[in-house]
């Protein structure tokens, strides 16, 4: 630590950082624009000026940019010096010259960093009366709105979009005081992380277009800490509500996981919650019915029938557990598709057995050599792809360190690095978005990917098994092995997307042989949790009904047609006397239900998910329920469970491995100085008007028996524990940049530790054996194709597909092959065990011959058991 004197006050600062970072970490109100903890310093805006003095005798001093000056030992600076105060006021007046008179109609208003900085510098009167520069806006697609007049030319957007996220289609155009930030022409932003522009841009140039359609100010939204439901990574979010509808998702900083950024599916997928089609009332035999009648029918049916329950990988642990309790552990069936359950089971076995550590996203970002085996990360675990993109900077960064360039000095670092990239190897059946930063790619059928993995493991440790058939990929495998061996923080990533156990085993062998971290992706937000909950296989459930062992099926938040072939589901649902389903949105399964119960989404219920990292995390209800929609576990729970705490306690007792769920967040009894944590900002408006059209007497604030949060603005003003932060705000910092004041050190962990409890810590190395079932080399079959799944960030996720913005961007279902037989875009018929599908074909020259990839999860391509063989023929 270095001692820096700020206005003669001695402060301990991190000497590896700059003065702005140090001052903000100490809570000084120093205005800034272009600097961002994740992007570093460029010194573009001149807003962060301070006065620096040579020594304690120097009274003259000189003005420097705090973001460009290291926090070196003994530095003396002043923030309050009148000259530098006037300098900063002058800078903001300059930035505001052309600024439009837009705050009242600007979506950033009330959470605008520019507003905050303007107030902080005391610029409250416009002297400039001449013409203002104007720009035309662009249509950037359904997710991000563009209002270019509000730009202050800080360059954060392009630095984030191009340098950090690897986007290409956003740039700075024109020159001098007319610089324009946008695309070369109107069109959807191509990058999958474009939504972060909304938070990165300190002004209202880039705003959330989905929010615009039902706009509410930040101060008017009621927030709750949530966990993203659109993939298994479990990024932390805050969800905002107003007048009973969900308005938006913002990033909830978690140093270990998502940091400052979310993917677009996670940020904009929330709109399914507001869907017109939502189930909001119980339906019994196609007639709407009351909650009480529905509950009674449920109890009666359960008491009289032979009941089985089918859980779900997208429902919370609590809901799965409530169902398991209702039907009894022996009659509880996992809702995961059979082929997937096998893969996830294998992954869990590997993680439990060790010795590999499952890394956090931050670990992934800091890895210096990465091998991806079988995963198209951008489309399966999007946020992880963004982390891997940063990992390729690690090795060049070492060289930069040797040149003594401070790592926060962004342009210096990039100049020193040029195009250098650290090793990233990607082995998948088809091309991926990350290929552009990869050192080398390898395209093969899943079995060959596995063989490749086994070969790498063998090259690292000759005791790891290898097949005796030789392969021409041996050289590349050896090169990867060398890189992994030389690495300081190596990482192997694999998962379920190749639908191959061999690929997962091969990845485990490599990770074990090279002693690397091992990250597995999983398909859904609680796949890991559902797998840990256990239960018999889905096909066993079908069998039980078919055999007449069961006549009543309770299906929890699960569209079975996405899990098993249509014919099988049809016959099972037909054979059952009573079908009871709980879900958010109507789907083919709920259509067949005799009793349908409206289940709360993440916004209307409390619960716990386990991410693919093995992190147990809690999400909380955003607003008090206004109709019969409630958490599935509330529908299913026994009477003596009163609150979430009771469910968690019962679960910990029945399933000791899941007792970490109790610690995922403080219990409902938690208080800060006797007070609950407010869900609403202090300035929430309209409390005595919002509901008076219904009833002139304002209702009492609803209680929340399940969490330590209150449904109002009343409560503690202090910072809550990370798992309970509903929104980031502190005096003078109304924008999302307020997160600075919640961290131990800006850009570091949250004060009091980050949210979530890790389930798997590395077991010691104690002779865990290598996997040895090496598959035979793939050989294409005459007249048949090996069908493998191909995931799409927009389209493969069931829930986000019901959000209008995401649906608009969703990929059209298609089949990708490498073949001269078909013309690009031609209609073909794919015939496999799951049925015959008519699809357009895309020619992927990089793919192995004999393998075809099908868009997964997009109707009609659901319910397929991967991998499978099929025929492809030109459509008649």
């Amino acid at each position: 630590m270095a001692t820096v004197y700020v206005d003669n006050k001695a402060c301990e600062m991190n000497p590896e950082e700059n003065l702005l970072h140090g001052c903000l970490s100490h809570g000084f109100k120093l205005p800034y624009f272009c600097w961002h903890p994740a992007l570093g310093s460029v010194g573009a805006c001149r807003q962060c000026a301070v006065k620096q003095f040579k020594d304690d005798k120097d009274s003259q001093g000189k003005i420097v940019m705090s973001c460009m000056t290291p926090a070196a030992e003994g530095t003396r600076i002043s923030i309050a010096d009148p000259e530098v105060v006037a300098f900063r006021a002058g800078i903001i007046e300059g930035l505001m010259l052309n600024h439009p008179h837009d705050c009242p109609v600007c979506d950033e208003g009330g959470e605008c960093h520019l507003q905050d900085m303007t107030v902080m510098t005391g610029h409250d009167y416009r002297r400039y009366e001449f013409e203002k520069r104007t720009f035309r806006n662009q249509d950037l697609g359904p997710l991000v709105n563009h209002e270019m007049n509000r730009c202050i030319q800080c360059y954060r957007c392009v630095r984030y979009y191009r340098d950090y996220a690897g986007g290409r289609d956003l740039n700075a155009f024109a020159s001098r005081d007319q610089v324009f930030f946008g695309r070369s022409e109107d069109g959807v932003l191509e990058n999958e992380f474009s939504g972060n522009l909304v938070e990165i841009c300190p002004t209202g140039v880039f705003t959330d277009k989905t929010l615009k359609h039902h706009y509410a100010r930040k101060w008017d939204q009621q927030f709750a800490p949530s966990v993203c439901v659109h993939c298994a990574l479990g990024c932390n979010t805050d969800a905002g509500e107003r007048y009973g509808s969900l308005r938006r998702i913002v990033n909830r900083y978690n140093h270990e996981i998502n940091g400052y950024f979310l993917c677009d599916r996670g940020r904009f997928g929330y709109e399914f919650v507001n869907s017109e089609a939502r189930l909001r009332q119980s339906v019994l035999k196609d007639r709407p019915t009351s909650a009480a009648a529905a509950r009674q029918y449920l109890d009666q049916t359960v008491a009289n029938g032979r009941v089985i329950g089918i859980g779900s990988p997208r429902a919370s642990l609590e809901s799965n557990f409530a169902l398991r309790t209702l039907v009894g552990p022996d009659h509880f069936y996992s809702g995961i598709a059979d082929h997937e359950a096998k893969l996830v089971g294998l992954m869990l076995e590997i993680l439990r057995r060790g010795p590999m550590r499952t890394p956090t996203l931050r670990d992934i970002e800091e890895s210096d050599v990465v091998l991806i085996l079988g995963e198209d990360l951008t489309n399966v675990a999007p946020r992880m792809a963004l982390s891997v993109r940063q990992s390729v900077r690690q090795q060049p960064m070492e060289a930069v360190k040797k040149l003594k360039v401070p790592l926060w000095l962004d342009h210096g670092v990039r100049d020193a690095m040029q195009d250098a990239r650290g090793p990233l190897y990607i082995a998948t059946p088809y091309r991926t978005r990350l290929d552009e930063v990869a050192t080398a790619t390898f395209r093969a059928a899943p079995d060959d990917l596995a063989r490749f993995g086994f070969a790498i493991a063998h090259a690292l440790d000759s005791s790891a098994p290898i097949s005796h058939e030789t392969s021409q990929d041996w050289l590349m495998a050896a090169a990867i092995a060398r890189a992994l061996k030389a690495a300081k923080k190596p990482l192997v990533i694999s998962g379920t997307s190749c639908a191959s156990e061999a690929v997962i085993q091969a990845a485990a062998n490599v990770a074990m042989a090279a002693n690397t971290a091992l990250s597995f992706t999983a398909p859904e937000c609680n796949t890991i949790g559902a797998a840990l909950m256990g239960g018999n296989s889905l096909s066993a459930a079908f069998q039980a009904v078919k055999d007449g062992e069961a006549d009543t099926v309770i299906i929890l938040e699960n569209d079975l047609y996405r899990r098993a072939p249509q014919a099988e589901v049809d016959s099972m649902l037909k054979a059952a006397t009573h079908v009871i389903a709980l879900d958010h949105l109507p789907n083919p399964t709920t259509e067949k239900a005799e009793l349908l119960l409206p289940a709360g989404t993440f916004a209307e219920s409390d619960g716990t998910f386990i991410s693919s990292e093995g992190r147990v995390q809690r999400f909380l209800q955003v607003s008090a329920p206004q109709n019969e929609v409630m958490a599935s576990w509330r529908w299913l729970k026994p009477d003596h469970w009163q609150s979430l705490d009771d469910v968690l306690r019962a679960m910990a007792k029945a399933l000791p491995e899941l007792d970490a769920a109790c610690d995922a967040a403080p219990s409902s009894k938690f208080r800060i100085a006797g007070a609950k944590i407010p869900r609403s900002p202090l300035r929430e408006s309209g409390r005595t008007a919002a509901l008076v059209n219904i009833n002139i007497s304002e209702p009492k604030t609803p209680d929340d028996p399940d969490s330590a949060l209150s449904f109002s603005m009343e409560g503690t003003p202090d910072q809550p524990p990370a798992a309970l932060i509903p929104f980031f705000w502190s005096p003078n910092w109304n924008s999302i940049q307020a997160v600075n004041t919640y961290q131990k050190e800006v850009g570091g962990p949250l004060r009091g530790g980050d949210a979530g409890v890790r389930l798997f810590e590395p077991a010691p190395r104690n002779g865990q054996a290598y996997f040895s079932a090496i598959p035979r080399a793939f050989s294409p079959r005459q007249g048949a194709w090996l069908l493998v799944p191909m995931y799409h960030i927009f389209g493969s996720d069931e829930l986000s597909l019901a959000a209008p913005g995401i649906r608009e961007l969703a990929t059209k279902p298609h089949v990708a092959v490498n073949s001269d037989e078909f013309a690009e875009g031609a209609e073909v018929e794919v015939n496999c065990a799951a049925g015959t599908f008519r699809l357009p074909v895309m020619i992927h020259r990089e793919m192995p011959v004999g393998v075809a990839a099908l868009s997964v999860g997009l109707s009609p391509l659901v319910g397929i058991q991967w991998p499978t063989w099929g025929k492809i023929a030109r459509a008649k």
Partner: protein
Amino acid sequence: MLSILRTIWYVFLHSFQKRITVQYPEQKPYLAPRYRGRIILSRDPDGGERCVACNLCAVACPVGCIALQATEDKNGRRYPEFFRINFSRCIFCGYCEEACPTYAIQLTPDFEIGEFHRKNLVYEKEDLLINGPGKHPGYNFWQIAGVKIGGKDKGEAAHEAAPVDVHTLLP
């Protein structure tokens, strides 16, 4: 005895003084235009709804008796989808008027809004919106703001230069 006589004398004198009792309601008192009574929403000089649904009045209101929801027409002009004031809570402090950046919300010299039922004191936009600009005849927020709306393109607001040609690099 003497004091009684003096009192009677004063009463007698008083009957010759100017009367100050006002015969309300037959006779209406004069209230200055800036009197803080019933709240209205005014219109632009060109007749459009003035309120841009910015929520500043609502947040300034110390009793929280204003609730509204913003929406936009197809040309980008923002307006309140609903706008509700609960006059049974309003304390007529005038903070909303102070906060309003468009002069849309104004307090008027009308105080005769008594009701037998509280629920009749809930005014919706239809009840609040008047047909003119109220106390601020000339002001039109949209002519000053930078966003484009129907009938006003970029560069057409007050003190605005024509939009930049972003395809040129000429100095």
